[in-house]
């Protein structure tokens, strides 16, 4: 199925495999972290293939460590390529972040100074990944918690430069923008005005919460709650400009019942349908 037919999707959770398999909502698709399926065989792969036989699937990597000052691990890339060949994902995405360094994996999406040298290294890592996968990937804007000195580039310009140099697409995580803007004290609206929206192939929405120690001064991108109203508002402004873009509701903790997640997913589906109606040329394509 071509990506332009996807509307709103959900992260696939093992608890919901059965319901996910049989759900037939129009435009529905499922996203998985490939790391959870890079097994040699067994039930995980069998389940993913069963889902894939009925629904479009996207692979959203968390450990390729594209912003590390080292090439991505060749063995990991080869396994990712084999998985992509097996499930033929609608979209493959990764983060503008690093997580593996000198043979050790740090399970988070870590920040870095956006220098000219970092741009060259990351562009090279993205190009290498795209060569192995033989397809463009989408790069996600990360969540920020720290003021880091030494940036040569604004993040939106950095992402635009990666698009220009590598032909990659972008994954715009609207919750990450909201949380980062709050934590670092910039304007989310201004950031989105500067974002290279023409390259956005996917949008992420998720919930966040206030830090248990620092309260509202520090928001955490926790994926453990419904999408906040402020994030929905930013999202609707974005898709009013971009038209419909495949949109994922991310939920990783405090997982509610399947129906509750689908209700939130349907809200995004309706927003995308409205955006399509508002753009008659898009409607003609679908």
């Amino acid at each position, binding site marked *: 199925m071509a990506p332009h037919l996807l509307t709103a999707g959900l992260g696939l959770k093992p608890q919901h495999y059965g319901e996910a398999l049989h759900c037939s909502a129009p435009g529905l698709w499922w996203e998985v972290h490939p790391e959870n399926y890079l097994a040699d065989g067994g*039930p995980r792969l069998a389940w993913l293939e069963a889902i894939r036989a009925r629904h479009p699937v996207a692979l959203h990597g968390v*450990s390729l460590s594209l912003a590390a000052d080292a090439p991505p691990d060749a063995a990991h890339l080869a396994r990712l390529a084999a998985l992509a060949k097996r499930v033929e994902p609608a979209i493959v995405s990764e983060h503008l972040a690093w997580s593996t360094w000198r043979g050790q994996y*740090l399970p988070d999406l870590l920040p870095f100074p956006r220098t000219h040298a970092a741009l060259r290294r990351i562009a090279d890592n993205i190009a290498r990944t795209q060569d192995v996968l033989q397809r463009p990937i989408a790069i996600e804007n990360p969540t920020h918690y720290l003021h880091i000195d030494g940036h040569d580039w604004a993040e939106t310009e950095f992402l635009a430069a990666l698009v220009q140099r590598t032909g990659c697409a972008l994954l715009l995580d609207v919750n990450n923008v909201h949380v980062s803007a709050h934590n670092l004290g910039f304007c989310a609206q201004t950031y989105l005005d500067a974002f290279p929206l023409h390259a956005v192939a996917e949008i992420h929405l998720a919930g966040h919460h206030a830090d248990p120690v620092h309260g509202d001064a520090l928001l955490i991108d926790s994926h453990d709650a419904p999408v906040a109203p402020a994030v929905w508002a930013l999202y609707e402004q974005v898709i009013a400009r971009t038209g419909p873009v495949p949109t994922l509701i991310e939920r990783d903790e405090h997982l509610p019942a399947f129906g509750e997640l689908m209700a939130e997913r349907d809200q995004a589906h309706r927003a995308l349908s409205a955006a399509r109606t508002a753009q008659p040329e898009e409607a003609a394509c679908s």
Partner: protein
Amino acid sequence: MQLSTFQDGFSAALRGQAVHAPWLSALEAQPGFAVYRNTVLKGCIDALQASYPTVCQLVGTDWFRAAAAVYARVQPPRDGLLMDYGDGFAHFLDQFAPAADLPYLSAVARLDRCWTECHLAADATAVGRDWLAQQAPHTLPQVPLRPHPAARWAWCDAHPAYALWQHHRAGLALPDALDWSGDGSLLTRPNAEVTWRPLPRAGAAFLDACAQGLPLEAAATRALETEPGTDFAALMGSLLDAGALTLTDSRAG
């Protein structure tokens, strides 16, 4: 600053190592630094808790997560495949002083690890009783049977590790009169899902021999030497029913 310099300093600081650099101190002084430090540690601990549920049941969540935090500092993950993280956890528990009062804990941890390895292993076609029935008697002794890629087995001399493990896995109360002697177990994946059953010492010896490449007759001899009086036909039937055996060329890919 070079990207590699930043990553050397940042990763060391995340691990709690003292690195004296003004730029790093400026980051560590911000409330947001703890978000990364907590997320990294939580990611490791959550992965271990998911992979060692029976150990966690035996010791309780608080004890488990404290032990897992120590392990994560000593043996951090090597890659992003966290579902496979923690292969050294049973050995770690053997050496972990606070676990000294629970000498069976590492044997139970080995069975949790067996479950994970069985769950993630490659697919292959297992041979069954029908295959055995079709073999010519004169060729059978030299048949190169191998353990199925997903088969995992363990024999514990000192503790009823399997009895402890399987009662907790099944959510059953332990019998009042648990026979505190060694036992063995076999985990296989005959119908896509991980299953388990008790395994006699002879069965573990037989599978060890098959894994070393011995043909059927030589592997059977090992089993009978280990536990004389074994009903080998019954053992073989049990292994075939479990889907524990395959032929060397039967990988399904």
